[in-house]
């Protein structure tokens, strides 16, 4: 009896310990965000008060964001850039990934090793020449600069898709080849529909990467009418110094679409990061 009691006490103790740890962890990661949400609903005077739930939430902070800056314009820009690049990445990376996985041609494996090598190259090294290319093309401060560099795919997405296609069984394609299907038909009708999990991972990572990107729009875009949301936030912060409720409201508005995507596609999201080790 006594030993059972000790075991019981020990397991209760352990559960309490773990739940305390869980609570502490959840609080630490949630609190800054919760504080920001609360701040976005306060008046300027309430900002310094340690209240999480303001008595009269000021939703007008949010409407004020819309009137003080071209929020919807920036929102549309960001959606447009992210949409184009995501579509382009998914299409061109899966197409090249299919070729690397299944279609034999001379020099293919050497080329793939080269692709792997370019994954090592940091943005630090490539960003200045990319900037100069855009200048020479006269694309700075135009939508082209935001879209074209990512539109036709890249090494990372190709690698991801190639690895996925390599794991698919080949019998479906062999049957299709015997039936006279062209490589394009095999890609479009058979492989792409089967690649949905990998496509979801690539699409989510790309979308989030573009949405959250800061350095590239910062050096490329001057006009507010072409700015992305993150760029708009930093500019607005400079203009409305210390008007915290306003700045927090804007921050929350930028966060919200991604939080929604995250909640819906949490699985693709987390798996994408676990598999690739990449986070925009």
């Amino acid at each position, binding site marked *: 009896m006594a030993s059972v009691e000790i075991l019981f006490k020990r397991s209760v103790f352990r559960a309490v310990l773990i739940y305390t740890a869980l609570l502490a962890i959840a609080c630490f990661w949630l609190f800054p965000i919760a504080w920001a949400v609360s701040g976005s609903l306060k008046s300027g005077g309430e900002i310094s008060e340690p209240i999480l739930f303001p008595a009269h939430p000021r939703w007008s902070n949010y409407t004020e964001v819309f009137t003080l800056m071209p929020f919807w314009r920036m929102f549309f820009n960001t959606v447009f850039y992210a949409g184009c690049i995501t579509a382009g990445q998914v299409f061109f990376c899966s197409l090249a990934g299919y070729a690397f996985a299944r279609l034999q041609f001379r020099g293919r494996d050497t080329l793939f090793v080269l692709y792997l090598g370019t994954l090592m190259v940091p943005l630090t090294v490539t960003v200045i*020449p990319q900037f100069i290319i855009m200048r020479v093309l006269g694309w700075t401060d135009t939508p082209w600069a935001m879209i074209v560099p990512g539109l*036709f*795919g890249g090494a990372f997405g190709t690698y991801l898709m190639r690895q996925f296609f390599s794991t698919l069984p080949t019998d479906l394609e062999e049957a299709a080849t015997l039936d006279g299907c062209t490589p394009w038909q095999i890609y479009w009708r058979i492989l792409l529909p089967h690649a949905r999990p990998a496509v979801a991972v690539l699409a989510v990572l790309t979308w989030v990467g573009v949405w959250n990107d800061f350095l590239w729009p910062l050096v490329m875009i001057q006009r507010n009418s072409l700015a992305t949301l993150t760029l708009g936030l930093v500019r607005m912060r400079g203009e409305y110094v210390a008007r915290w409720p306003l700045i927090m409201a804007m921050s929350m508005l930028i966060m919200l679409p991604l939080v929604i995507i995250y909640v819906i596609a949490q699985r693709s999201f987390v798996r994408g990061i676990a598999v690739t080790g990449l986070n925009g």
Partner: protein
Amino acid sequence: MTSIDTSAAPRPWRRRAWAGRLFVAPNLAAVTVFLLFPLGFSLYMSFQQWDVFNPPKFVGLKNFRELFTSDPLFLIAIRNTAIFTLGTVAPTVLISLVVAGVLNQKLKGIGIVRTIVFLPLAISSVVMAVVWQFVFNTDNGLLNIMLGWIGVSPIPWLVDPQWAMFSLCVVSVWRAVPFAAVILLAAMQGVPETVYEAAKIDGAGGIRQFVSITVPLIRGAVTFVVVISIIHAFQAFDMVYVLNGANGGPETATYVLGIMLFQHAFSFLEFGYASALAWVMFAILLVLTVLQLRLSRQRSMEAASGLG
């Protein structure tokens, strides 16, 4: 397999080869123009003196010499980057191990906690930096309000050069842990249950099991997290730019290499000098990564021989 294909049906084989080249072509063009060419061009530029307005002039190793011998800010940036990398990576790895270990428990409500902890993954570092600025605010920030409750006078988190680097590290760790924890948690979930059974029979407690079984078994993932975190921290820019300003202030407290590169390239338009700096950073990163991989391989070999 290919040889059978060729002998049986040479034409489809050839068609497949052409399709392969065609399918790779647009992607390869993009990689060439926006990655391979910039890589070579950046190296070329590092030996030139060039602003946008005058044609580039070959100056040999002058940029590199200047960087190492006559630019006091470079030494400051190196020192700050080293402090920042250490101050971010070490806590990130330790904390993310604990967090992943706790999140790996099969408990009621664990899904909600996972969702909360992984939420920062979806939020841009720019937004997070702005939010943390609000938290760190000296006069009415959350942290100083809470410190006030226990009688500590307000700390100028971002204003005082002595505190600025510390604050930056706190935010970076907060942002980096969810990412590291995702990878470590995935690795922990790959450890088969049976491994723990012997330990349970031996009466080893949860913490003992975690330290002496789980962590050694996911060593590969830990190494990966360390390498990736170093690469991220070493090139930090977004977070510093937004949290501490375009000059890595106050004074030079958070002047890291990423900020220095941005300044020289896009504020001063010294493309040659900035490219030289970029290549120095790239070289340091490569050396760090190779060293780290070597070290961890050696360690795992020692561990393996110790077992044998």
